[in-house]
């Protein structure tokens, strides 16, 4: 097979691309093409996002008034549980990995597909099966334990449909394990000739680190949910004091997974940030090696900090001190990344297309989220603000201000590649701005609320907190508009958007060296890589377009 050096590939625009190759239902539902599977995931996660967002909307409407007068307490408990479970396991965890990762990774490394395409399809079906179980649980009345399922409430006292929800998460967990396995082996074994580790785009480093976590943490969640469910069914279990069991053991097992899970949720976003910043500064990422190793460091150290969710649980104080120290440590590699991205901007040729707006927003919002994480890592401060809205604001800054923003940025960045169409740029920029304003209005007041003492998971509160709650709910409606706009114009662009050429952003990276959309097997000829990632020409010289 004749191979061509990267940078000079002249792919013929094939009439056949992966989208046009088959339009029957079964060509989609039985596909093993990583690009189609990415799109299947995209549609699925949007479905669950919609349900979870509706739950959030109801919560924010309830919280406009101090009295709990929109829904009963039990219903409110079910709302925040549904919101948490669906957002964490059925939206955020699959979002960038299963959608953008699936689509982009083989393209970025010059491969024809992932290592195990059939397993890839299986992972989507497992995701759907898990989701079906979760929806079943919701339809039957929902769960009121919170997404954290703490024992003994979940295992003994709750009268809601815990087991079907836990089963749904269990099954979806195997979906993420398979995705992680697939990515690890794909990146390890299927890079194009010349693509050494340190020539890889940083998105790949992030996805490799994410996959490490997916593979090592998720099985512990699986066994933990199984044990909790067994205790519910059997009437006794290892978390039950009647047998001499310890409910806190559940928390250790649960958070061993769930803390690294938040890094599953943020690392891919950081990968997107690296790609977009380099492209829209037209500059090499500053400190490439630092950023690459920081991804690995976050993945590893992220496993050592879970006890910071248990400072007030009756966990040993000594263990608390150890976990607190390690939690400070994990902030370091994240900070290193933020510094390096900022340095990349310096003296770059910056342009403000939609992906860049989202990514710049990410850097600011993630920094706020990360810094407030440090407040929470300090034992003394945490005793005061744990289980308050301070925590809620902290993790929403990271998850929404960070991850969802990065997801939107990545979606817009690779949209031309995925669909062959350009989205309307002005609308994109407008939506990004609306989202940024709406987001801050929603969540910044929650820092204040938490500091003032408003507990989380309560639907009624003292009158003096109302003004901040109203601000937050107002912000939420603006945020909703910000998310609705892309839904509309992205779908619109599928039919009416301008057709995209193979490299509309003039970005480096192998995925831009093939047509938009790509052919079924990604490349007409296997690329050979001879240059570093982000090999943008030094600024001041014109890049030649042959």
């Amino acid at each position, binding site marked *: 097979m004749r191979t061509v050096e990267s940078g000079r590939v002249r792919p013929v625009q094939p009439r056949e691309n992966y989208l046009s190759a088959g339009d029957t239902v079964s060509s989609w539902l039985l596909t093993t093409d990583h690009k189609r599977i990415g799109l299947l995931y995209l549609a699925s996660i949007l479905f669950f996002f919609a349900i979870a967002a509706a739950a959030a909307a109801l919560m924010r409407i309830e919280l406009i008034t101090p009295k709990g007068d929109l829904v009963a307490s039990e219903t409110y408990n079910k709302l925040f549980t549904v919101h948490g479970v669906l957002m964490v396991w059925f939206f955020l965890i699959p979002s960038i990995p299963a959608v953008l990762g699936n689509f982009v990774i083989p393209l970025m490394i010059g491969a024809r597909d992932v290592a195990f395409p059939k397993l890839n399809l299986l992972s989507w079906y497992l995701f759907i099966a898990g989701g079906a179980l979760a929806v079943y649980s919701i339809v039957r009345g929902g769960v009121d334990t919170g997404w954290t399922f703490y024992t003994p409430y979940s295992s003994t006292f709750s009268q809601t449909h815990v087991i079907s929800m836990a089963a749904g998460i269990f099954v979806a967990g195997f979906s993420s394990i398979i995705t992680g396995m697939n990515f690890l082996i794909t990146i390890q074994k299927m890079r194009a000739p010349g693509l050494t580790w340190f020539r890889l785009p940083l998105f790949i480093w992030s996805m490799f680190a994410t996959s490490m976590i997916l593979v090592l943490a998720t099985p512990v969640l699986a066994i933990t949910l199984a044990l909790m469910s067994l205790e519910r069914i059997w009437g006794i279990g290892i978390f039950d004091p009647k047998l001499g069991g310890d409910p806190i053991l559940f928390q250790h097992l649960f958070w*061993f997974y769930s803390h690294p899970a938040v890094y599953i949720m943020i690392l891919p976003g950081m990968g997107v940030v690296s790609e977009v910043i380099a492209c829209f500064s037209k500059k090499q990422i500053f400190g490439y090696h630092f950023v690459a190793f920081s991804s690995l460091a976050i993945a590893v150290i992220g*496993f050592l900090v879970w*006890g910071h969710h248990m400072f007030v649980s009756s966990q*040993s104080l*000594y263990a608390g001190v150890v976990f607190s120290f390690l939690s400070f440590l994990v902030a370091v590699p994240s900070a290193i990344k933020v510094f390096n991205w900022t340095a990349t901007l310096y003296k770059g040729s910056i342009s403000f297309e939609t992906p860049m707006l989202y990514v710049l927003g990410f850097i600011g919002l993630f920094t706020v989220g990360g810094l407030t994480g440090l407040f929470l890592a300090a034992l003394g401060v945490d005793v005061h603000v744990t289980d308050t809205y301070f925590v809620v604001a902290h993790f929403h800054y990271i998850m929404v201000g960070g991850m969802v923003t990065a997801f939107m940025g990545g979606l817009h960045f690779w949209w031309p590649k995925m669909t062959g169409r350009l989205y309307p740029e002005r609308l994109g920029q407008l939506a990004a701005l609306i989202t940024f304003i709406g987001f801050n209005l929603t969540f910044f007041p929650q820092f204040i609320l938490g500091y003032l003492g408003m507990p989380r998971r309560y639907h009624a509160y003292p009158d003096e907190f109302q003004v901040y709650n109203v601000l937050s709910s107002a912000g939420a409606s603006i945020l909703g508009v910000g998310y609705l706009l892309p839904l509309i114009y992205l779908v619109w662009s599928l039919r009416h958007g301008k057709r995209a050429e193979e490299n509309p952003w003039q970005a480096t990276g192998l995925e831009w060296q093939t047509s938009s959309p790509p052919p079924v097997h990604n490349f007409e000829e296997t690329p050979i890589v001879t240059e570093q990632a982000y090999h943008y020409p030094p600024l001041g010289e014109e890049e030649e377009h042959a």
Partner: protein
Amino acid sequence: MKTPAPTRVYWIIWASLLGLLGLTFGAARLNLGQFNSVVALTISVAKTVLILLFFMHLRESKRITWVYVAAGLFWLGLLVALTLSDYWTRNLAAVSK
């Protein structure tokens, strides 16, 4: 990557495994105090090493495979060690009231 072991080696490993089984059974009947668990665990680890290296051909595998294997075991170690950091320090005199 070394060449695969001849058949003879598999039988020797099998005999060693059964021998270690006998050893662990015998040692359990002696009163070694706290040391009983250590002995039992060490013998289990020894059996595991033999199975990994010879039956699972880790001896002949690339170094990257060793890294993946080590990672799985190491991570289990993290789970156990940090959880025990809670349970083993709960009742220390300075903390309990």
